[in-house]
């Protein structure tokens, strides 16, 4: 997490536009790559690369929406910012329903655009972070014994040690032991952490 630097991918058939956005994005210290078409972008993109996609709506061969659809068909959740021309409202609405993230009408306020890009990058990183966290929790949960999983399920349900002991027909002392084992193995600092993790794995 955070080891790989996020990249802003810019796709526009108008080289002036894509290059200028790259210039703008780089001016605030972000990495950017520009492509002349959706196809060129898809050929070079590696899904594990964090970042966001800024694409024009109207392009020959493959429109911005088609590009977004292809990405989502590949299971790539890269945030997409679609630049539209004046009057493309209906198209934008259609695209929105299909799950594209943001729309920017050209010409755009560069600060808004940069803010949007920042938001997207952050969201992407967070999502990727969540993905990593989720993976880690699952691994830890796998290490629990069957009895420990039962105990964990019951305590995150809000049951007291006594109740758990009665339900599982064991002594409260043993419940205590299991509970500290669970907290340990799941690397949960607080009970609240454990509850959050339980959402992921249970």
């Amino acid at each position, binding site marked *: 997490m955070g080891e790989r630097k996020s990249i802003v991918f810019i796709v526009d058939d*108008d080289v*002036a*536009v894509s*290059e*200028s*956005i790259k*210039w*703008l*994005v*780089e*001016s*605030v*210290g972000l990495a950017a790559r520009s492509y002349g078409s959706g196809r060129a972008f898809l050929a070079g993109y590696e899904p594990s690369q964090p970042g966001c996609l800024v694409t024009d709506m*109207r392009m*020959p*061969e493959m429109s911005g929406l088609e590009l977004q659809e292809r990405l989502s068909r590949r299971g790539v959740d890269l945030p997409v910012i679609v*630049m539209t*021309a*004046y*009057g493309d409202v*209906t198209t934008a609405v259609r695209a929105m329903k299909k799950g594209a993230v943001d729309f920017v009408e*050209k*010409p*755009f306020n*560069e*600060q808004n655009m940069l803010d949007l890009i920042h938001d997207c990058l952050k969201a992407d990183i967070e999502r990727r972070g969540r993905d990593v966290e989720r993976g880690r929790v699952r691994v830890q949960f796998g290490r629990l014994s069957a009895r420990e999983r039962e105990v964990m399920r019951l305590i995150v349900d809000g049951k007291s040690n006594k109740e758990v002991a009665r339900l599982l027909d064991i002594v409260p002392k043993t419940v205590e032991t299991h509970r500290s084992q669970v907290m340990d193995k799941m690397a949960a600092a607080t009970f609240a952490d454990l509850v959050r993790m339980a959402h992921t794995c249970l």
Partner: protein
Amino acid sequence: MQPGVIGEAPMSAVLLASILLRLCGVIAAVVLLKRQRDWRLGFLVVLIALMATRQILTMSHHFGLGISFDANLDELPGLIVSVLTLMSVFYIGRTLDDQKRAGSAFRSGQEFMRRLIDALPAHVSYVNAKQQYQLVNKQYEKTFSRPRAQIEGRHVRDVMGPELYAAARDGIDGALSGRTVRMDLNLKRPGREDLVLDASYVPDKDASGAVNGFFLLAADVTDRKRAEEALRQSEQRFRDYTDVASDWFWELGPDMEISFIAERVAHHTGIPANEYLGKIRFEMGGYVVEPDALGRHRRDMDRRQPFRNFRYAKRSRDGGLRHFRTSGKPVYTDGGVFIGYRGVTSDITHEVETESRRRQAEQRLLHAIDVLPVAFTLYDSDDRLVTCNRVYRQSHGSGEVPAEAGMPFKDLVDAYVAAGGLGDNEKIVEDWRTARLNRRIKPEQGQQYRLGNGRWVEISDYILDDDSVITIGLDITKRRTAEEKGSVHESELTQVLRRSTMGEMAAMLAHELNQPLTAMLNYSSGAIHRLKSDRLDRGELLPVLQEIHNQAERAEDVLKRVAAFLRPHGRHDGVCGRTRVTDVVEAVSVMAGAELRAKQIEFKPSVPPDLPPIMASRIEMEQVLLNIVRNAIEAMQDSANGERVLKVNAACDRDDGIRIDVIDSGPGLDPSIADRVFEPFATTKSNGLGMGFAISKRIVDGLGGRLWIRESGSDGLCVSLNLPTAEVR
């Protein structure tokens, strides 16, 4: 005789008489021999001579000179023999004479018979039971070209030849079995005319009824047959004519009753011919004849006068009215006795009906012309008035022009001018009249006048095929007024189209401007950020500024195009001029270019370089075409079709002027507005006014062209327009 008396006794008178008788007998026999030239009579001569000699010897032996008249009974038998001998000679002579006379008579009779039958102009022969010619006449020699001797005695078949024999067989066999047969025989003679013989075979029966042979009499009837054939053919020809003619013949008897009428009459009247016989014409009922005409007709016939083409009508049995025309002439015998009428009748229903229809049509046409709201006149090739209508007669305001058929064109115009109908256009009228009279007429080139009553007319002349002339005067006062207002209206319409087109173009132009503006903003913002954070490399800045400059120029280009669209070439809107289609298409391709690219539509214009210019306002044409192109683009935008092609084909058609087809590959015409595309506010677009097609059509119509839409099969929609070329106008 007694030996004692010989030489001694006087001559006995009886003996002497006997000798004389016998000598007479010799002489008679010799005469007979000579006459009859029959050597057998020689015996008779010798016999009688010997008898005479014997008596003479007896006398010389017994008697001396002197004559004794004593009765000597001994000598009496000799005398009797002598008398009998002489009588016998005479008898024989007589018999032979009779015989000879009878033979000669027979011979001459037979000769006569033969001459008779030879003289007959027919073949006469007698054939025996063995079918051999016994007797033939000279005609046979001629016919069979051989002497009689080679015919008589021969078999019939050998003479006639097998063919003719076969034909004659009936006659021959019939006659030989006892019947008389009469038949025609066709005698073919190679190289010569065929003969037709009327042959009679008559059996020759004896008393017991047995047939010994037959007589044949065959007369040459070739000429008669030919005449009969000619007559028959002539009659047949007459019958044929009668049968095939639409007319039919009839004959009336002396009392005017119908004595003959061709069968054909039934075909036309439905009444069989035999029902007519014996009836009097026009007394059969069902006739529709004008009484006067019928009276005249009857008087003519009472006076035995020929008549021609008398017309009448008659109700046929099915109730329909048929029209007829009949002609006839009286017939007299050689002696001048009237024996009736003979004539022919035709069914003229079709002609009468056609004529009536033609007259009706003509009448209708005249009525139509009369109510036409234009002044119509038709002059014949000599420029004399044939007909004119009400509007023309009333067209000069102060009463009717005395327009009568036959009036010369020149006089009519003079009358018109005199009545003040043509106002103060004397010079023009004079020119027109001269041109008209010299047939220098340019059709469709109307001459416009302001009449005395202040109204405007347009007068056009048209020469017809038969060199007659139609002159049409059209009251164009309203049109003139409307045109003055109309030009204003037209430009208003154009403005509406302009605004609607511009409104729709604005979106496109915005996109066009967005690109460079976006790039400029990004470049400048990026540069500002770098400057602020002091991360700017000088070398980096120059190309960026250059790019900003480029993009500003790009935006300027776009704006120039907008300006060009708004005020093209400094000309006023709606001014017609020679406009090149290729310029229009070029301008439209520029104006729609961005949208075409954005929608990934391939634009394929095809304008021949030698296309003649059209007479139209360029700006209007650009708007019309841009409108059509934009419609096509939008149609294709909604289409799922993979290929998006927009074709603009221009071509020159000899008859239609310039034709421009705009063919898209969209889904075609929306059926919900198919029948009112050209009406204002018909649209399937969410953001259009729906005025485009309506206004485009108005503009094209105004230029004398036509705008239409059709589905173009697999291609989607085809919008076509044609416009006159500048040359024609």
